[in-house]
């Protein structure tokens, strides 16, 4: 390949990337535009909140408990060397609220709810259901996509809060009855050290942003998928890959913005 061809190939790649970025940006703007009208028919969103929120509870609760337990064990291992074993509760709570709760919930959300959204919409497209809707003069973006978008944005913070709460409970079970840390110290250190605005608030902001990102990726991939079995399979994979990467990058950006030492 001569240098000119190489340059052309690189240029084409870049152009295609920019094009798909632009396309998704327009799609996002469109989705946001269709969201307020969909709020007026909130019962449509309620059905979706049940599908992607309630039905994700099992995986969120199980994972939350496991992560809380592991955090308790690992932080006890480190803290006990400095005689600070009582701080296990505080460390676990801060890790979960500020970081692990939002991120892990978003990753689980992408795997559990995101994939099902993508597959559902991809198959609706393959079955001409979206085309049928359009022919009935009904915009699928407001009837199908917007309620799901709302449901994702509502569900994610709630799931994140549940994840963190269950994680703290899991850590308690490991730390207090099993390791033998004083229960009062476990809770009082947590109460003293956790700030409602800075820690819980920042975590909440993260879950909302991740909810928007993960749901948007899932809807976009489903709506733009090729209406074939391979197309839907590919779109589902992409949902997991893109939303996971998006969540981790956004997490870094948000953490940098929110970081304060005082």
């Amino acid at each position, binding site marked *: 390949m001569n240098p000119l061809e190489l340059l052309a190939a690189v240029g084409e790649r870049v152009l295609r990337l920019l094009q798909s970025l632009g396309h998704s940006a327009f799609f996002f703007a469109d989705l946001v535009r269709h969201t307020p009208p969909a709020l007026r028919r909130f019962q449509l969103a309620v059905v979706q909140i049940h599908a992607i929120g309630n039905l994700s509870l099992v995986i969120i609760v199980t994972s939350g408990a496991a992560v809380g337990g592991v955090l308790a064990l690992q932080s006890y291992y480190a803290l006990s060397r400095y005689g600070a074993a009582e701080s296990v509760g505080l460390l676990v709570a801060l890790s979960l609220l500020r970081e692990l709760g939002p991120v892990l919930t978003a990753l689980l959300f992408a795997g559990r709810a995101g994939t099902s959204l993508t597959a559902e919409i991809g198959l*609706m497209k393959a*079955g*001409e*259901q979206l*085309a*049928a809707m*359009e*022919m*009935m*003069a*009904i*915009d699928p973006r407001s*009837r199908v996509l917007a309620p799901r978008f709302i449901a994702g944005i509502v569900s994610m913070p709630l799931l994140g809060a549940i994840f963190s709460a269950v994680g703290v409970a899991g850590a308690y079970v490991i730390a207090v009855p099993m390791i033998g840390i004083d229960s009062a110290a476990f809770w009082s250190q947590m109460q003293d050290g956790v700030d409602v605005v800075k820690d819980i608030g920042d975590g909440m902001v993260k879950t909302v942003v991740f909810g928007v990102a993960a749901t948007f990726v899932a809807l976009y991939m489903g709506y733009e998928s090729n209406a074939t079995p391979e197309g839907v399979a590919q779109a589902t994979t992409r949902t997991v890959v893109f939303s996971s990467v998006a969540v981790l990058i956004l997490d870094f950006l948000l953490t940098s913005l929110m970081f304060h030492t005082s």
Partner: protein
Amino acid sequence: MTFGYDSRVILTDISLQFPRGKVVAIMGSSGCGKTTLLRLIGGVVTPKKGSILFDGEPVDPTDQDKLFALRRRLGMLFQFGALFTDLSVFENVAFPLREHTDLPESMIRDIVLMKLNAVGLRGAASLRIAEVSGGMARRIALARAIALDPELIMYDEPFAGLDPISVGVAANLIRRLNDATGATSIIVSHDVDECFSICDYAYLISSGRIAGQGTPKELQGSEDPEVRQFIRGEPDGPVRFHYPAQPIEQDLGLSA
């Protein structure tokens, strides 16, 4: 009107008319652009040249409000029904009514049951879509398409993949509904006998142009070789059996 995707031309300079109150069939072999015609009428795609008029008004996909107002006056039956799999039979038929009207629940119920009754499936109202057969799905989709009493009903391959009884039922329904509601119907199909039994006029499309047109009787009596080949279902004729290829001797290395 001419239409194509990118450089591929699908329909070349054709003109069709669908008079009010008539059942018009568009026939042709698979992949000849029949379904594309319906998409053009519905404003899903735009012609490259020429225009499409619905009741004297141009179909303009760039103006979404106008396009949606127009689509409310048409009903379309998709090839496999395109029913909403997350809704029941009843809710599928009620869907356009709920979306486009503010009718009270009792009236929606009455209309839905009447429409389902017209296709003989009032008893199936509570079934889930997964529980109905292909023929039933087509009839439910038909009930949904006529829920808002459209002025124009388009049928995309209404007979494909149906058993003989369902085909007869579907054909009868199309004619009966058309005459009862005074609507106009366009049937896209390659099922010659069924189309001829119910349509007033038919177009035969071949390689992007109109190969023949007329009443069923005129077409059956046509001497045009292309029309005859299609109507009689002869495997070879003006439409070749073989996809264009080099001579088989050459492919097999026999042409020494």
